[in-house]
């Protein structure tokens, strides 16, 4: 039943005993300043986190397992990212957390409340942008925002939202006439107009041009600045790295790694990646190398791993990628090794390690592959 009285999230619930049984415990986020954050926001420590779920499972039609035992805890004020390839179960997970899908098993608590018991109240506290919603094209921007505002008991004024999302100029334009970036900003506007405490964004920047993406990032940061909690899904590595305080990498319906972006890169074993290609110098080695097969080449990878400061090695087609802590130690040794083997260096580059590297390391696949 609909409760008219609005409760504060902290007015209720003892600690729901979600112990941090997670295997990635080391990377769990509990810092003194986060705790201070929560106190000042009025969420005392007895209260459930904005979002927590334990052992979520979702099976479609008794066959397809979209989510297979997924647990999360997201603290107030965090921007949390679910990162994974298409079909990893990100959208299913976020829709279960949003109370739009019932999990096959497992439990979801939002500020310690369950969807079953407190749906209307929870809806007042969260703002959602779905992966694809085609808002009515024949309404203008202001009408759309006013419509969504009318559903909440204490919405923000439409003009505020229009201004914040830089849609004031387009206030009287029909939704059908907006550009992709403007439409996406409007979708986020409809999520923000209810003055939510949590923002759920399912692939908010997919298909947007770089400028529109950056604009959306700013909006998300501004929401966070005011103490809001954000859960977003993305398959863009750079987005996850720049925007999220914490990340879970999802693959095949499970979390395969969780932590801050720098944690995860750290876990890769090095902040730098050295990529190079070599060619065999035929004149020096005669025909000896002609019949080399892949196995022998892979054996050769061990050779590269023994170079100073190298943490791990992998091969991508002809390119060899080294995860390296200190490139200035590795590169001279690498050059020497190449020369002494009688090979020729065809290509050499170094770059900062990215989440993409983490993902490839963990799954052996690239994120954008399907």
């Amino acid at each position: 039943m609909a409760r008219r009285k609005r409760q504060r999230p902290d007015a209720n619930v003892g600690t729901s005993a979600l112990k941090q049984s997670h295997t990635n415990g080391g990377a769990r986020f509990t810092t003194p300043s986060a705790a201070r954050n929560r106190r000042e926001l009025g969420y005392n420590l007895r209260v459930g986190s904005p979002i927590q779920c334990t052992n979520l499972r979702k099976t479609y039609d008794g066959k397809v397992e979209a989510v297979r035992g997924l647990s999360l805890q997201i603290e107030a004020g965090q921007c949390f990212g679910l990162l994974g390839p298409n079909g990893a179960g990100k959208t299913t997970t976020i829709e279960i957390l949003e109370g739009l899908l019932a999990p096959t098993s497992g439990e979801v608590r939002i500020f310690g409340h369950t969807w079953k018991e407190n749906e209307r109240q929870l809806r007042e506290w969260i703002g959602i942008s779905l992966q694809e919603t085609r808002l009515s094209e024949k309404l203008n921007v202001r009408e759309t925002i006013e419509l969504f505002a009318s559903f909440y008991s204490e919405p923000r004024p439409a003009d505020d939202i229009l201004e914040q999302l830089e849609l004031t100029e387009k206030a009287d334009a029909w939704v059908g006439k907006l550009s992709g970036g403007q439409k996406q900003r409007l979708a986020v506007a409809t999520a923000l107009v209810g003055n939510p405490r949590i923002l759920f964004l399912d692939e908010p920047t997919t298909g947007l041009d770089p400028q529109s993406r950056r604009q959306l990032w700013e909006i998300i940061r501004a929401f966070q600045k005011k103490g809001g909690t954000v859960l977003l899904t993305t398959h863009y590595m750079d987005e996850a790295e720049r925007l999220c305080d914490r990340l879970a990498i999802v693959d095949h319906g499970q979390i395969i790694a969780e932590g801050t972006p720098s944690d995860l890169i750290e876990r890769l074993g090095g902040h730098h990646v050295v990529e190079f290609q070599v060619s065999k110098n035929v004149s020096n080695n005669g025909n000896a190398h002609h019949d080399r097969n892949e196995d022998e080449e892979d054996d050769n990878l061990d050779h590269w791993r023994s170079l100073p400061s190298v943490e791990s090695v992998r091969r991508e087609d002809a390119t060899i990628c080294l995860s390296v802590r200190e490139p200035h130690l590795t590169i001279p040794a690498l050059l020497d090794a190449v020369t002494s083997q009688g090979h020729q260096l065809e290509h050499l580059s170094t770059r900062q390690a990215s989440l993409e590297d983490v993902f490839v390391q963990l799954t052996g696949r690239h994120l954008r592959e399907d």
Partner: protein
Amino acid sequence: MATTETNPPKLHADNQQPLPTHPARRNGRWSGYRHLLWVRIIELRREPEVVFWVFIFPLLLAAGLGIAFRNKPADITSVVVIEGAGAQKTLAMLQTASEKASFDKSAPDKSSSAHSTIRATVLDRDSALKAFHFGKFDLAIESNPDGSYTYYYDPARPESVLSRVEIDATLQSVAGRKDAIQTSSQSSSEPGSRYIDFLIPGLLGMNLMNSGMWGVGFALVEMRQRKLLKRFVATPMRRSDFLLALTSSRLVLMVIEVGLLLGFGVLVFHMRVQGWRSVLSVLLLASLGAVTFGGVGLLTACRAQKIESVSGLINLVMMPMWIFSGVFFSYQKFPAIAHPFIKALPLTALNDALRATILEGASLSSQSGRLLVLAIWGGVSFILALRWFRWT
């Protein structure tokens, strides 16, 4: 490897404001409903197709059918005389009768004209019969050598049957038969009994059905397909408000539909609506009809995911009513055994009630049976629709 020192600067611990950060306005209980209703109406207004199909099309249909089936001043009986010995004589007899009839028609009291105009043609046997079979003539007349006549007529064609009787009477009376008794006739084509009078209430009922089914059913599935329904239920919007707004938007449109169509009938075809009480009753009836078909539309659309599938469903539901419910012609033409089934259809109940109210000035209380049929269809549909409804 993870340390507690990895506190991301993005938390902005130094910039704290309690939520909510903006001066809040409080929305009342019905704010969502009001906005949903308003938005629905302005959306429809901005959709030129909707304006055409809901408002203009029924008027065009009424105008077209009203003109095509207007009461003709006098039917022309078209007959063919088969070439032969007595053909010219027959023709002369028919022409005499026809002239007499036109003379009668020019008399001040037109309605006393009992005869209609006879147009006769002489053709050889083959072409005469062929033309008759193709419907060019209502009757073929052959004068036999012994002075008798043979009529070729088609019992399945009313005008052919009529023509046989008429021609026979004409020939007999020209040949000298005297009427045994004196008769006189009074013609009646007052407003109220013409085809257009029958048609307009039927069109009104059909229009209420069409726009209810499409306006609710189609609109819902379209919103479901666009994930807009899902987006709505992700807000604190009351689901009942949404369905209520969708249905009541139909009521607003209904007033306009009824006004236009009735006004058109009155102004163009001089239709007579029996008093102001009757107008009020028509509005009440139309409201019930709009809500009933809104409910049926809701039920039709309660689970469909694609607009293609719901279009088929809507047509499937409406098809029997187009045929059986007496929109364009009376369902009395169907065998009596089918009548109970036909009368149980919501559109039949609505059309019958609208006709009784508009044409006869019948009160609503005298048609409780029809109202009950509508209410049951509407009520049961709503209940089932809400039980099976899928938002995502």
